């Protein structure tokens, strides 16, 4: 694990991203505060519909200002990204912030050659001429582990394999040597062996360019492997935040513990897959007060939840929302507090 600087690179304060549904704005990301430091991998985990991707796209400003409201502060270099205009944002995107998409096939333009797509960012952010750009493209392709770079640069996305496409995506994100890389589930669309390669690649490249990575994922295996710090999101809120080792050794919030509990264990004799009851409440039906997780732990007494759950510091860098974790037990193991 590389040296994580203490300097804050990106500070998110009270970020609220709301979508308009029939003239009412419903927050999908609600009051999220996070910091990202240099050379750090911050993982954001949570199940589908928790607002992870919305958080990611808010950082790079991909939201349509008519249908989506982004409030709060996303501070980078004394600039609040939440208030930038498109033109101002275009100076940052691709240069200071790189974005890696989930599905590389749909995120690559099917009718542009790989080389052109990687060069796209270079055209807008550097003064390199065509020859120099071509050289840089080949360099980038080799950097992400593509062996015959000159051939691949002339190919179209459909001619590449899934792993190669994701490598190309990473090359595109890296083209401007960004200080921040936002990776939105970069390994979800890939098979397991390729996942490991891509993660290794991401990690080694990070060591090289010392950027901070925000890694959005729902795969706790990925988190354990490369993250430095983890924030667990549930229903638009961060419910637990801790250094990775602390989170896996000492999970506090019922949701985190349920998530960890539901990882299938190959050596376990228990054939039943552990699940979390119910599902994430939809955006419009989300309770706006009280503990948002309470509907999924109905066996707990109402009184264990806070009225207005806040993040409480329970250890160095370890934050937990609500007080219900102190009283939580798994339903089928009634009475045992440790689960």
């Amino acid at each position, binding site marked *: 694990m590389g040296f994580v600087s203490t300097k804050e690179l990106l500070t998110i304060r009270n970020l609220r991203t709301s979508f308009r549904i029939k003239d009412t704005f419903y927050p999908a990301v609600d009051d999220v505060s996070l910091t990202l430091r240099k050379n750090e991998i911050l993982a954001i985990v949570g199940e589908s519909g928790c607002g992870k991707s919305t958080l990611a796209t808010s950082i790079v400003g991909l939201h349509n200002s008519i249908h989506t409201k982004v409030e709060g502060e996303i501070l980078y270099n004394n600039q609040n990204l939440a208030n930038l205009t498109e*033109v101002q944002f275009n100076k940052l995107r691709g240069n200071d912030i790189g974005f890696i998409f989930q599905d590389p096939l749909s995120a690559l333009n099917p009718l542009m050659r790989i080389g052109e797509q990687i060069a796209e960012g270079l055209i807008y952010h550097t003064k390199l001429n065509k020859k120099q750009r071509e050289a840089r493209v080949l360099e980038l392709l080799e950097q992400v582990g593509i062996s015959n770079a000159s051939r691949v640069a002339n190919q179209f996305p459909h001619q590449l394999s899934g792993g190669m496409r994701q490598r190309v995506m990473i090359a595109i994100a890296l083209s401007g040597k960004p200080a921040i890389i936002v990776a939105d589930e970069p390994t979800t669309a890939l098979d397991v062996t390729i996942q490991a390669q891509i993660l290794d690649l991401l990690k080694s490249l990070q060591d090289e360019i010392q950027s901070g990575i925000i890694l959005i994922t729902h795969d706790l295996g990925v988190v354990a492997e490369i993250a430095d710090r983890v924030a667990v999101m549930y229903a638009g809120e961060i419910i637990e935040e801790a250094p990775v080792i602390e989170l896996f050794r000492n999970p506090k919030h019922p949701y985190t513990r349920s998530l960890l509990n539901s990882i299938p264990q190959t050596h376990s004799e228990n054939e039943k897959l552990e699940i979390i009851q119910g599902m994430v409440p939809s955006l419009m039906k989300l309770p706006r007060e009280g503990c948002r997780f309470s509907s999924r732990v109905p066996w707990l007494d109402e009184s264990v939840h806070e009225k207005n759950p806040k993040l409480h510091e329970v250890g160095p860098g370890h934050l937990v929302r609500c007080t219900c974790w102190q009283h939580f037990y798994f339903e089928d193991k009634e009475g045992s507090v440790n689960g």
Partner: protein
Amino acid sequence: MANKNKKTVENFKSESSPPTGIQVVLREFKKDKLAMFSFLGIIALMVAVFVIASWIIDKEAVMKINLIERFTEPGVSGYILGADEAGRDMFGQLIIGAKNSLLIAIAITILANVVGITLGIIMGYYGGFIDNFFMRIIDFFITLPTLMIIIVVVTIVPKYGITELIFIIAAFQWMSTARLVRSKALSEARRDYISASKTMGTSDFAIMFKGLLPNLSSLLIVEVTLNFAGNVGIETGLSFLGFGLPPSTPSLGTLISYAMNPIILSSKWWIWLPASILILVLMLGINYVGQALRRSADAKQRLG
């Protein structure tokens, strides 16, 4: 290094890969002999018309009135296709007319489609208010009786020639393209690769015309081809009705409109028939080509 790169490129070419772009179109044309024939025919016809009309025929000589040679039959005294009521050479008029008609159709197609595609992409890309605003304008234009307005404008405008006609017709031709492009651009612009381009700091303009436009090309090629066939027809129709070009400027439409005279229609066939056949052949041919292109753009309909 350069040599080695060249080699790898060549190696790659020998590998099998699914047919792309032009290969699909070629296969489709090989399967569809009629489309192939039409395509080659139209190209040959257009080249011939432009070459003969521009360099071989003297326009002044063709349009000179010579009443002695009035209604000369085809083949007599050097008139390949005979002469009209003013003794003007019909073959020369046919070629010049075809050139004018084709030029007008090409100009209208380019003008209307440039406007339509640009607007369509902007509407589809931005969506929301901009989309709504322009769609209402298009709705308004579509409800207008195009032919009536063109006829009125033609009557009002005092100096009136090929350029004016092109602009007037084009003004009523861009809406369908704009609507079609918009509908495809709407779905295409919501794809991840457009967002990916945004995350690279690419400006909206560059995304629209360098990223999005090529992805609409299969649709556009078909649309433009079929539009072209339609535009040949529109110009001809207007001229036939007497609202197109003045008689001093021959076009296929003005030639066909001679058939409005019953005597010419019944006994002087050489004056109107060649132009009619040329129009028929042109429009059929362009349509066959357009259909072959449409099939190659849609994998479900392909023959090849």
